[in-house]
């Protein structure tokens, strides 16, 4: 125990060359996955706003974990096919946003399959310091052009997806909320941005809020009324997120500017 003997302390005080002292220590970590639609319909102001919002978001996320948690970012963009911005999750301290371009169609099903491959202990979630289920944030402005249900079915049996905190942002009036709710498994964690101002604010606030909730320790003991299982814990986090999203949208500060579909 910690009250170890004075003799033992003397032993290590005398010993300058402690090999264990040279070993590195990692903080607890959380991975946030951003799935971003870069299809042709995102071209123009939508993509410009998204790029700017994501650039501005990184310093804000850096301050969430502070000394306790290392937040890592993984960005998967999708249009005709899908691609990771970087080949592995990057600590937000070192993350550099590479501005995105819009072109192509919307292969969301393929994207879900790729996400399923990387949501694994042997892939993107291989760090022992990973202490929380991931946050998965989907942003799209339209309807998938491939069989997204086939990809989603594969994702739905992945424990990391099931236990992850999922949120979706529909951009403009073409985005399909039902499809997004299928992804998040909860219609209350689907939100819609109809203007550039709303898009910028929602990206930043939702990413920050979901990271805060995602990195909060919540064990099976946090609800005393019943013998909680893992899904109950995740459902509670989803509920908290849904409530926060509602607060963001209902806030007086929420922009009521020119809608995308008339303004972009």
């Amino acid at each position, binding site marked *: *125990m910690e009250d170890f003997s004075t003799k033992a302390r003397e032993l290590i005080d005398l*010993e300058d060359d402690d090999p*264990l*002292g040279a070993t*590195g220590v990692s903080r607890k970590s959380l991975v946030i996955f951003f799935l971003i639609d870069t299809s042709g319909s995102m071209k123009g102001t939508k*993509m410009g706003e998204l790029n700017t919002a994501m650039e501005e978001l990184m310093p804000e996320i850096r301050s969430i974990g502070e000394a306790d948690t290392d937040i890592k970012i993984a960005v998967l963009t999708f249009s005709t096919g899908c691609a990771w911005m970087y080949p592995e999750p990057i600590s937000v301290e070192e993350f550099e946003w590479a*501005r995105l371009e819009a072109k192509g169609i919307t292969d969301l099903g393929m994207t879900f399959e790729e996400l399923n491959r990387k949501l694994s202990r042997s892939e993107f979630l291989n760090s022992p310091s990973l202490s929380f*289920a991931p946050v998965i944030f989907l942003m799209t402005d339209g309807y998938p052009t491939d069989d997204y249900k086939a990809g989603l079915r594969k994702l739905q049996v992945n424990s990391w997806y099931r236990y992850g905190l999922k949120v979706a942002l529909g951009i403009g009036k073409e985005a399909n909320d039902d499809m997004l709710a299928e992804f998040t498994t909860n219609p209350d964690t689907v939100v819609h941005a109809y203007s550039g101002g709303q898009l910028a604010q929602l990206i930043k606030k939702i990413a920050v809020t979901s990271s805060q909730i995602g990195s909060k320790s919540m064990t099976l003991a946090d609800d005393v*009324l*019943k013998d909680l299982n893992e899904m109950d814990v995740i459902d509670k986090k989803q509920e908290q997120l849904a409530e926060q999203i509602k607060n963001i949208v209902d806030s007086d500060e929420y922009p009521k500017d020119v809608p995308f579909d008339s303004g972009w």
Partner: protein
Amino acid sequence: MFIGLNETVRGASHVDSGTVCQDYSAYKTTDGYAVAAVADGHGSKKHFRSDFGAKSAVEVTIKAIDEFCADIDEFEKKFMEDPDYLITKIQKYIIKSWYDVVNEHYNNNEVKQEEREKLTDEELAAIKTESIYGSTLIVAVLTENLCFGMQLGDGSLVVIKQCGESYMPIVDDESCPANLTASLCNSNAIKMFGYFYTYDRPLTMIVSTDGLFTSFSSKESFEEYNCLIASQLDDPELLKARMNKNFVRRTNSGSRDDISIAMIFEKEMFDENYINVQMQVDINKNKAAIREAEEKAKQLKRKARVEQIRYEKRMMEEAEKRMLAQKAKLREEMESLEVEVPEEADTSSEVVSDVSE
């Protein structure tokens, strides 16, 4: 001669909140066998007696191994006939013994107000007695001719081979993602137990709770750390003091969780192979240096890519500006020549948006 060593440090989060350590570790050595065990009580409101649950888990395990190994020759013989059957039998015995101990403790110790905090009578009644004591359990057993390990919930079992290499024989199957763990209090705990066995005698077996594992950035660095620990077993007292100091640092700067470790080894085997583990430590140092260099190279590559993108964007913007200036100049020249200039829509904002994509 079998030797054991254990150490437990209270987590930084428990120190801050003034709560007790919920880990427990212990070992036992005899002439015929050695056993090491660690347990991590779940803590938090519902598992308000998990410190006792963790202690009981370790104690019933050591007692169980003691009973099964009372006649070590007979035990080894039966083990070799059907290891899976015998290990499962031990697991069932441990679970049953633990249930008995925690239920007896519950019946003999009325729940005090300070324990239950804000739980109402109704809420308390709804919690299974065993859940109040919920804990993980990781065990290593070593005899002259075999070794085996068992694991229920988060934590690690590392085996250091005679050649000095280390490995983790019980694989994480991803059934319990981050922050969620299997437990002795689960009704299907027996199905959640992982185990392994081998007849290759190891140099050392080390069990630890997840507060240690989660303070590392990679599985490789954790295995190498265990190898480093094994390399210092020639002076167990000094090693214990160093581990204590290092675990305090790890919980403060890393996991913030309780950290426990327990290990067993045979002295003659260790003395014979001491040089191997020392050499492995040197090899691991080189491997770590290579990983670090690779990581730095990746960072530089990422930065270079971003710089390249920024450079290209800047060049495009400058080209755009030159083009607009040229256009304005031509327009002026045309106007000065009194040529009728057609009206055209201002596309500059659209062009800038495209560039920004």
